[in-house]
């Protein structure tokens, strides 16, 4: 059992969710209520990671974040180290990969809020900030929870992108999914089996919890 890899995966999941939630809330809300030319294009772009093979995405990330890319060089100049094969690089990649998992459930949740409710709030003189906190977020929270659970569990399981931009460095980029692959290659089926079972249980529990919570919300 590779606890370091598990810790790393959990940390990666937490960073991804932490950064993606505010992004998801604002982008999801914007997409839910605005109409503009090219909205379909924006939605398609944000949904792209759902259908793109992770290796394709990983390849583009490797090329665009690598030490020979302008972005990679700018990052290195600013922080003293490159972006590929580092934890920060994985966080960035993971955010991009999880965009649809965070935004789509939130967008659906915001779309489900009746426009009259918001109008009533506006008539009562709520500022848009207070409207978000007091009315919109509580009404959309099951969507937000789904987004959190989906992007977190999806991060735990992400393999292809991490393999391309991570480089399987213990304690830095070797996540649990990579560790399982690594253990299989070392003919260590016992560890691989244990980690796979743990990942399965963890995924089942998180997704089960989110279903249970959203069902309760619907009934209650």
């Amino acid at each position, binding site marked *: 059992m590779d606890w370091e890899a598990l810790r790393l995966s959990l940390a990666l999941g937490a*960073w991804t969710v*932490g950064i993606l939630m505010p992004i998801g809330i604002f982008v999801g809300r914007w997409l839910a209520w605005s109409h503009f030319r090219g909205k379909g294009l924006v939605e398609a772009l944000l949904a792209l990671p759902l259908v793109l093979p992770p290796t394709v995405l990983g390849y583009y990330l490797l090329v665009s974040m690598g030490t020979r890319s302008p972005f990679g060089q700018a990052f290195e100049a600013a922080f003293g180290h490159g972006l590929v*094969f580092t*934890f920060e690089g994985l966080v960035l990649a993971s955010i991009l990969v999880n965009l649809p998992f965070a935004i789509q459930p939130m967008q659906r949740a915001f779309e489900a809020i009746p426009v009259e409710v918001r109008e009533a709030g506006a008539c009562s003189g709520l500022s848009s900030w207070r409207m978000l906190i007091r009315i919109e977020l509580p009404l959309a929270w099951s969507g937000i929870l789904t987004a959190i659970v989906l992007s977190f569990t999806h991060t735990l399981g992400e393999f292809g992108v991490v393999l391309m931009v991570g480089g399987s460095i213990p304690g830095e980029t070797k996540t649990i999914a990579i560790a399982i692959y690594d253990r299989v*290659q*070392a*003919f260590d089926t016992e560890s691989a089996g244990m980690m796979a079972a743990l990942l399965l249980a963890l995924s089942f529990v998180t997704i089960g919890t989110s279903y249970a919570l959203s069902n309760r919300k619907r009934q209650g």
Partner: protein
Amino acid sequence: MKRFLSSLAALFLVLALPGLARAQENAPVIAAASDLQFALSELAEQFTKETGKTVKLSFGSSGNFFNQIKEGAPFEMYLSADESYVFDLTKEGLTQGEGALYAVGRIVLIVPPGSTLKADGSLKDLASALKAGTIKKFAIANPEHAPYGRAARAALKTAGLWDMLEDKLVLGENVSQAAQFATSGSTQGGIIAYSLALSPKLLALGKFDLIPAEWHDPLRQRMALTKKAGETAKMFYAYVQSPAARAVFKKYGFVLPGEK
């Protein structure tokens, strides 16, 4: 619900913190060819026992590590299964000197229990099995970027079997994965590193026989410290050339530099 959300937020904070604190430990990360999977793990353990220092090992195909080091991967030492990769990195100014030859590898034909194929290093049985049509799948490492895959291809070409076998090949991303495929029972066999076949884990999984060393270019395995190497990596580099390390390499079937 508020309590639930705030405890969720607290949980994420706790999870995220280790990501911040990670840079404290400074055990060097060492990129090593997959054929070293067992030998180098044993060496690293001995090294830790003797010096109290730890190294982190990352195993994969030499060609992939070569590309990753060029892209700026933070490896402090690189043990390649093919010395030309090390020479190329040296030319690009990414290593400290030309490094050192640490071992010469050999390849074996390995067959899983119950295979119709005989473990015969002269590949004569493979030739007749191919003619008889009993070979459905055969595993080697990817010759594009794995030195052991190249050696396997060369040996099969020498034996005149490459053309017949080419469309039956399953390619491992590295030689360790090829060994996984070869012993899985879903293939009739494969060509893998002698050092892997000799490990206790694989001894139970198949029979093997050495392929003549003249059938392929020698697998001259070279290592080098990268420009990022620190003190521990330098100590480990010296350790890999020590008599204790040579004994381990020998145990795993490697021919040592300066020996026959």
